[in-house]
């Protein structure tokens, strides 16, 4: 057995070992990266509920595909980031959080109470995210989709149920408001 003090064990190798192990090991893997994955979605303007749902789908996909993780290609966070990006992009395209793998694995949707939401929101708190959340709903959705998620105007027009020109106006107004607020904050 390896010496616990052996510093030659890399995080990537440790993640690989956990992903190759049993259920308990996967629980440890989850605990190591929960904040990272939730933070990924929060930083992209998702609400705590949405971030939790997308994190559930991300970890479900990681569980389903854990044998494919190759530590030689980098740390697990890079691998998880790739999964999370896919989940986010698919959710934006579909207009709702994707949960295909979570449901296939029989993982029930989380019912979050206030305490859980507070714990998730502790990961947020960045001025830009706060400013984004204060935008009107229509502008917030447009800015999120265009600036953060990288969707094109055509996709957004379909997803938001309006014309491309309306989406452009909402993005423009939202970004202007954000700039003004962030300048004011500083």
């Amino acid at each position: 057995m390896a010496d616990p003090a052996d510093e030659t064990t890399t995080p990537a190798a440790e993640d690989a070992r956990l992903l190759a192990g049993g259920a308990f090991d996967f629980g440890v893997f989850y605990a190591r990266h929960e904040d990272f994955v939730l933070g990924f979605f929060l930083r992209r303007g998702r609400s705590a509920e949405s971030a939790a749902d997308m994190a559930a789908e991300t970890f479900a996909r990681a569980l389903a595909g854990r044998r494919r993780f190759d530590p030689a290609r980098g740390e697990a966070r890079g691998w998880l980031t790739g999964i999370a990006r896919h989940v986010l992009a698919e959710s934006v395209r579909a207009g709702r959080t994707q949960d295909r793998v979570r449901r296939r694995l029989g993982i029930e949707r989380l019912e979050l109470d206030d305490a859980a939401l507070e714990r998730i929101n502790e990961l947020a708190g960045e001025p830009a995210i706060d400013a984004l959340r204060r935008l009107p709903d229509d502008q917030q959705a447009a800015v999120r989709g265009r600036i953060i998620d990288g969707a094109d105007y055509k996709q957004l027009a379909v997803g938001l149920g309006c014309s491309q020109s309306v989406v452009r106006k909402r993005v423009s107004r939202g970004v202007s408001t954000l700039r003004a607020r962030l300048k004011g904050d500083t």
Partner: protein
Amino acid sequence: MRLPELHAAMVRAAETQEAAAPPTRRRLLSRRTLIVLVACLVLAGTAAGAVLSLTRSRPLTGSINPGPNGGSSLYSIQVFPMMTVGWSGWCIEAEFAGTAAARATAYGCGAVEDSGPLVAGGDEFASSDRSYTFGIVREDVASVRLPEGKIVMTVADARLPVGTRAYFSPTHVIHKLPNRTRAVTFLDARGRPIGSPSQTAANAVQRLPVRTQLGGNPLAGKCTITVRPLPSLRLLSETVAEPEPWPRGQSGALLSCANATFRLGEATIGLARLVSSTAPSRSAPNLPSVIPDPHHPGLLVGVAVGNLGFPSGVFVADFGGEQPFSATPAAAAYSGHDVSARSAGSGWLVAEGGTPTQRALLLARVSDEGRRPAAAGAYGSAPLGRRSAGST
């Protein structure tokens, strides 16, 4: 951990996936022991910046440095049955004794809410820069995972309630809100989360109906406290409940079915009768946190574990110094006294307050039998004592 429910769901899904794996792999996994898992966790914590760490719980008594108020501190954690009539529950205390100005106490009582893994405590209390967590758990709980990822292995101790283990750990997590309760995950010997039964309005535990009598008229019932008369002894009040099997069984739990408060000379002494919470007519579990009284053979003694009159569901923590109950001053009058106890019938009699000799005197005059017929006369009269004794 921010979403322990999601963590548990992921582990369950991984178990399902594991069960569907080829047999060779299943056999390999089934041979894994906690020791292996422990080693893996240590590796994980060391190699990846200590996201997770694993440690053994500190014992129930010992010293800790730094203590809650800085500097080295002796500490003690005790648990004792909650003696409020009509309830089955526990009171748990963590006391730190550094210098006189650096004492700290956390104390709380609560009913047995369910038969889940947490028996008592589970609280976390904190000063501005230090925090501690402790709890009494079912004996199948091998470790607990704290929200920040730290895993604490539980310990056994003869001073604990029957069938339980304990954990106590400094957490060094700075809280925005003091004494905030955070979710703890209970793990079995294989590291699998142990779920708690859900509580609903339909299955909520209610206190047993009680009757209270002030003054000298005795109450009839299956569980009372009958004392042979003594010139200097006067009954102040008595509260009784009909002992019924507590609807939510829990290992080692006792049900308080009668309290009485007496004036003995200048002292006020409370008495409680405790029976098994799951089968009141059967032999009750041992009392925790007591030792044989070297000066009074046949009696047990416990230091500062009395809780007669302490309100259920209250948790107080104080880092301010000498007065441990500054948050609720009235509670100090009802708790923290030494107790003496002896077996009586199938259960226990516990006396709280006064001196050891006064408690021993009072306990010697209490009938072992709790049943008192409805036709009993004035409390404290000689015939009452004889009738009560004869009713066995």
